[in-house]
């Protein structure tokens, strides 16, 4: 008994030492490759294209970090993670960072020992109904059958919402988004509920999109963002500020196209600090001064990333909404580079 306790603590000590020993930054640099945990397939956010290259809104964060740290946005190894494996994969060190549309919640931040470094998309749960149902608000869904994915926060939010409004509903359990969409179209449920971004993407591909409405109520807060492990704060800073560089760039009108031009001409000290022309921002997180510039050059600023992957120009057609800059009435607000 005593012996097994001894060996157990020895193993634990080894683990702690192993995890704490090498910093993630050094590991990534030594490996020459960033290992980024992503969703295996979520329209607009992360998915491999026909040639097997990962594309999407979440993937852009991985690319930006790789460009900032390694100088090349292509030096990323994408590890597709399922909902079940994502946090353990991060905690066990299989991936360096997670950019997998994960909601920042209290228990994930504390109990699961993750650090959510920023929010790259403010989402929320919504409802989709057939127009012929004649419903214009989620509060009119009394007694409805509702398709909902099992084992997700979506399911709990739904229960909370109906309980709070003193209504009843019949859940139709589905396994994934493809099934939900199929069941909803086949008429197995009156309404389909999932994150609003997902609803918009589904609606865009439905044969009778005009007959389907997304109800105005958003019943939950889903701040989605990249996460890193507890304990390596410098690495968290790197991911955080690589992302905020994109947000800051949008705020100050720096784009992928005009970056060199702005860098050559600007006198604005905030932009000069962002682009590494003044100060020593890079050195403070163990990188060189051009890290933010490389990140912006790699993927464009936040607005460009949004437009290219999920924005109004794409067929998903998400409006900026909460994800607009704070100057435009949204919540995207990068702390100052100083």
């Amino acid at each position, binding site marked *: 008994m005593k012996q097994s306790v001894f060996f157990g603590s020895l*193993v634990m000590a080894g*683990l702690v030492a*192993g*995890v704490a*020993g*090498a910093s993630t930054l050094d*590991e990534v640099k030594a*490996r020459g490759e960033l290992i980024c945990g992503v969703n*295996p*397939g*979520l*329209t*607009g956010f*992360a*998915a*491999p*294209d*026909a*040639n*097997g290259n990962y594309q999407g809104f979440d993937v852009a964060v991985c690319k930006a970090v790789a460009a900032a740290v390694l100088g090349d946005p292509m030096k990323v*190894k*994408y*590890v*597709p*993670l*399922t909902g*079940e*494996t994502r946090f*353990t*994969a991060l905690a*066990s*060190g*299989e991936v360096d960072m997670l950019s997998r549309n994960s909601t920042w919640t209290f228990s994930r931040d504390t109990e699961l020992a993750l650090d959510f470094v920023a929010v790259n998309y403010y989402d929320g749960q919504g409802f989709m109904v057939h127009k012929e149902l004649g419903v214009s608000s989620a509060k009119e869904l009394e007694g409805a059958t509702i398709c909902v994915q099992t084992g997700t926060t979506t399911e709990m939010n739904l229960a909370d919402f109906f309980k709070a409004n003193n209504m009843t509903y019949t859940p139709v359990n589905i396994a*994934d*988004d*493809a*099934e939900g*969409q*199929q069941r909803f*179209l086949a008429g197995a449920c009156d309404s389909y509920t999932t994150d609003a971004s997902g609803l918009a*993407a*589904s609606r*865009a*591909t*439905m*044969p009778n999109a005009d007959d389907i409405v997304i109800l105005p109520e958003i019943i939950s807060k889903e701040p989605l963002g990249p996460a890193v492990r507890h304990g390596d704060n410098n690495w968290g800073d790197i991911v955080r500020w690589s992302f905020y560089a994109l947000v800051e760039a949008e705020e100050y009108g720096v784009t992928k196209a005009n970056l060199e031009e702005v860098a050559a001409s600007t006198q604005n000290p905030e932009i000069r600090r962002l682009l590494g022309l003044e100060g020593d921002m890079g050195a403070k997180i163990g990188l060189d001064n051009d890290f933010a510039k490389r990140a912006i050059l790699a993927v464009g600023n936040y607005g460009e990333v949004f437009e290219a992957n999920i924005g109004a120009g*794409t*067929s*998903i057609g998400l409006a900026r909404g909460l994800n607009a800059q704070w100057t435009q009435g949204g919540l995207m607000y990068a702390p100052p580079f100083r």
Partner: protein
Amino acid sequence: MTETSSFVRTDMLPPAPPPVSQTGVIKWLRENLFSGPLNTTLTLCGLGFAIWLVQAAAPWLLHSVWNANSQNECRSIIAETWGPEATGACWAIIRARWHQFLFGFYPMDQYWRIYVTFAALFVAIAPVLFATLPRRMLWLSLLYPLVAFWLLWGGPIWGPVFTALGFGLWAAVFLALSVRLGVVVAAGIGLVAAAVFWIYGVGALEASMQSVLPLALPEVDSDQFGGFLLALVIGVTAIVVSLPMGVLLALGRQSDMLIIKSLSVGFIEFIRGVPLITLLFTASLLLQYFLPSGTSFDLILRVVILVTFFAAAYIAEVIRGGLAALPRGQYEAADALGLDYWQAQRLIIMPQALKISIPGIVSTFIGMFKDTTLVAFVGLMDPLKGISTVVRADLNWKGVYWEPYIFVAVIFFIFNFSMSRYSMFLERKLKRDHR
């Protein structure tokens, strides 16, 4: 009595046709489908169901579209051709993404390597499956795993070559010592010798040979494997390794030696007592905690090892069933002939036990091959869920539901049906009794 009476017939009546109800289709129908009230009801129900099924599925299948670039294009083609209310299958998704369903993200210009490996697979298993082929071809079968590994993953050829030499070393040590020291000890010493060679010799030799004669294929990373390539890599490896492993475990379970017996029982019962999903999660998540930080031990390899263990435990129990079915007299006859343990197993016990176990073994293999789709839960790109999710995430194909499932099901059916047919062929061929 020369004259016959006028009332006696002089010629035979021509045979009358049997009554309508006792011949041809009608007889068959009456006997097989309408032989009683219960059977009549069941027939009518079955017929109704079949008609309903055809009515539901036929228009959808008949309105198939193969040439389109997106689901919406499929829909508009169907609406143009068969009217606005028509529904149809959009096989264009398969046409556009078949390569991902089959090969995952394997580099396209390297597909020939998969074709060669797959073709060679048949050459390699033919002598194992069909005893009429020359026995010398079995050497090809033994070499195949290393050749396949080199073809699929690439890299310098010298790694597999020296790994093969390691096996040669093992065999040489075994042959030299087995007479004097016995089978088990000789195999153990051989393994140690080979392991020392693999750990300390192969790396250096590989590097030096590579500098002398660089022969290498471009390396392909494990995470580029997916679809049926992944299912076959996991399935074939697990099948090939789990059979000998299962035989050893079954023998170990029957052994008189306490340690071997308890290890075998413990292994079999533990693996069989745990769901495969748990083992897969162990492979993908738990093992990483026990490895030093920064090492990454290939996920496919981890999964293959645990799927193999899983299959081996089941195979062991199937073979134990075969061993238990053998009459006691067979063991005694082997002893009476003066055969030692391994000779008795090889020449008398195993051939009979394996023959009895064929249906069980093949069922286990078929089940295991289908279970390879479970690797989707640890983020590997299996054809059913992994690749389908990826393809559906493309806005062009989002919402295509049945077509990928049907496509994958058909391919699985072809593989599993062939296995099942082969096992029936083998059973017929090996049938020695009750002829």
